[in-house]
């Protein structure tokens, strides 16, 4: 393993390595050049590759993503930054009607290899227009892959996989993880899209965590293990396509399932997983499938309200104990 690096530099290194490897890869977005984005994720890329491959744009989310679709259809591999995920509402048109449908709609005449980076920012008091987790909207779009890294290791591996993928990929990165450090493997590696990872093996209950909720789930597992409960922890990593086989196999072993995600519970990823598990695994379940997720309201700027809104380790521990109790 190499020396520890921060999550945000793992993303940065993945992009830079892919740009060195493949001249068709470029980055584009607001502030991606000299500033390197609001939190410096793309810092230094413009110095190595120049403004032709680190393209600063006007504040025009729709045109940024439209440009990526047109460029990808013409043979390039754009990596776009959309900044806070709420801003993606300004380019749902391009992602849904254009990027996700183009290959199918045109009878496979084109490929649309592009990556769109969007940042979730729960926990920072960033308020209703800067904190939302909207991944489930996009996970319902055939033709658009959605990944949610949770550690520096998979942040790098998933970014490299996303850039090499011949399809549009939405890459959802959590602001609160940017400063997490970990040793990452030396040299070139990818984290495969469409595969979840069993982070902790156990026998009593399966916990599926989504994106940054891995950090909360790890804390919860530590607490639960001290109480003699052995959860199996699965990091979902890809939201579309879902790796249900790994989840089914785990449920077969534990007979209980809880899903934790930062996005709202209503119409969320947890609902989709729960529905699939009860369809396929009904006889293997000893308890209803449960979810720990945000309530059906808006995320608050106010710290006390935001804390109540966001799922965390404490809420997960309580839910698991209730399910096993």
């Amino acid at each position, binding site marked *: 393993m190499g020396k520890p690096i921060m999550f945000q530099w793992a993303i940065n290194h993945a992009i830079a390595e892919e740009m060195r490897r493949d001249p068709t890869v*470029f980055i584009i977005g607001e502030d991606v050049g000299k500033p390197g984005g609001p939190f410096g994720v793309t810092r230094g890329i413009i110095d190595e590759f120049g403004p*032709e491959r680190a*393209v600063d*744009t*006007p504040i*025009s989310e*729709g*045109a*940024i*993503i*439209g*440009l*990526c*679709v*047109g*460029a*990808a*259809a*013409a*043979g*390039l591999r*754009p990596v776009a930054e959309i900044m806070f995920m709420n801003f993606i509402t300004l380019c749902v*048109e*391009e992602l849904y*009607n*254009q990027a996700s449908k*183009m*290959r*199918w*709609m*045109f*009878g*496979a*005449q*084109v*490929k*649309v*290899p592009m990556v769109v980076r969007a940042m979730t920012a729960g926990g920072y008091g960033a308020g209703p227009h800067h904190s939302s987790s909207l991944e489930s909207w996009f996970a319902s779009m*055939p*033709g658009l*892959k959605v990944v949610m890294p949770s550690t520096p290791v998979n942040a790098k591996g998933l970014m490299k996989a996303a850039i090499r993928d*011949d*399809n549009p990929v939405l890459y959802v990165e959590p602001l609160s993880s940017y400063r997490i450090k970990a040793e990452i493997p030396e040299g070139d590696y990818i984290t495969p899209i469409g595969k979840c990872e069993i982070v902790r093996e156990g026998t009593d209950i399966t916990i599926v965590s989504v994106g940054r909720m891995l950090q909360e789930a790890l804390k919860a597992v530590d607490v639960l293990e001290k109480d003699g409960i052995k959860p199996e922890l699965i990091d979902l990593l890809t939201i579309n396509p879902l790796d249900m086989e790994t989840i089914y196999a785990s449920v077969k072993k534990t007979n209980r399932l809880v899903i934790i995600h930062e996005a709202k519970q209503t119409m969320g990823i947890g609902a989709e997983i729960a529905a699939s598990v009860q369809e396929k695994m009904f006889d293997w379940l000893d308890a209803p499938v449960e979810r720990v997720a945000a309530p059906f309201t808006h995320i608050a700027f106010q710290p006390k309200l935001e804390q109540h809104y966001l799922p965390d380790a404490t809420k997960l521990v309580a839910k698991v104990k209730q399910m096993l109790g």
Partner: protein
Amino acid sequence: MKISKETKIDLFTRMVKIRTFEDETHKIFMAGKEMPGFLHLSQGEEAMAVGTCANLTFDDAIYTTHRGHGCIIAKGADLKPMMAELFGRIDGCCKGRAGSMHFADVKTGCMGSNGIVGEGMRLAIGTAFAQKYQKTKNVTAVFFGDGATGTGAFHESFNMAATLKLPVIFVCSINFYAQMTHKSVHIPIEHVADRAAGYGAPGVTIDGNDVELVYEEVSKAVKHCRAGKGPYMIEGITYRHHGHFIGDPCNYRPAGELEEWLKKDPIVLYEQKLLKEGVLDEKRIQQIKEECKNLVDEAVAFARQSPQPDIEELYKDILA
């Protein structure tokens, strides 16, 4: 600008080809049995499509609208897979998945019609970006109507194209109706091409029914774009002979308006001009029309013999 005799005949032939294709399509659609979905026809606007595309090669790209048959034929797409597409058959250019409003023919540089008004502009800047990035001298032309000038896509795309100096020709066919709403209701200025100045780009307003004029103006735009000078806008005043869609009763159109515009039909005008100039005689004109009719008839026969897609097609090609 001196336009050669061959080019003049080519311009005329392409326009007749479009008109023949769309008239036949109209007839088949109205018969109600063979052509599913919605149909938006462009009779009357052929000079804009042809005058533009006659300046382009297959390596140059176009994006067009939900009313896009004319542009795609003008660019040189084969009529057979186009017709099969309208019939929803497996040999259609998009395997019968796209239909009239969404089809593309990538090998001829037709990068897509679009069901979303204005959206072609956002995609066009991307293909133009790739043309510049790959250091080609190719250009992208994007067609849109007066209605699309009200979209955010128009501003965002033009502004981005100008900022990044992208080789995009914005081709606006003023057909006077944004679906069913007259231009005077939704555009506050006389000429939308004036807006190009706001992006530091050239913009001209011309008679969009004069195919030679369109051809000449677009050739200037192509030269401008190939020289790396950024986008260029051409606004052509033309008219949509049919309603927004086939079946539209057109009750919003003042009495006599269509009849006035039919006198300015771009094909009729050009036919008269070429006869007068002695470029074509009646016999040759008749011959061109028959040749186009034969091509369209062959396309219809091709479409009719092509099977419907199997159900499995619904699940193919979602991912590459």
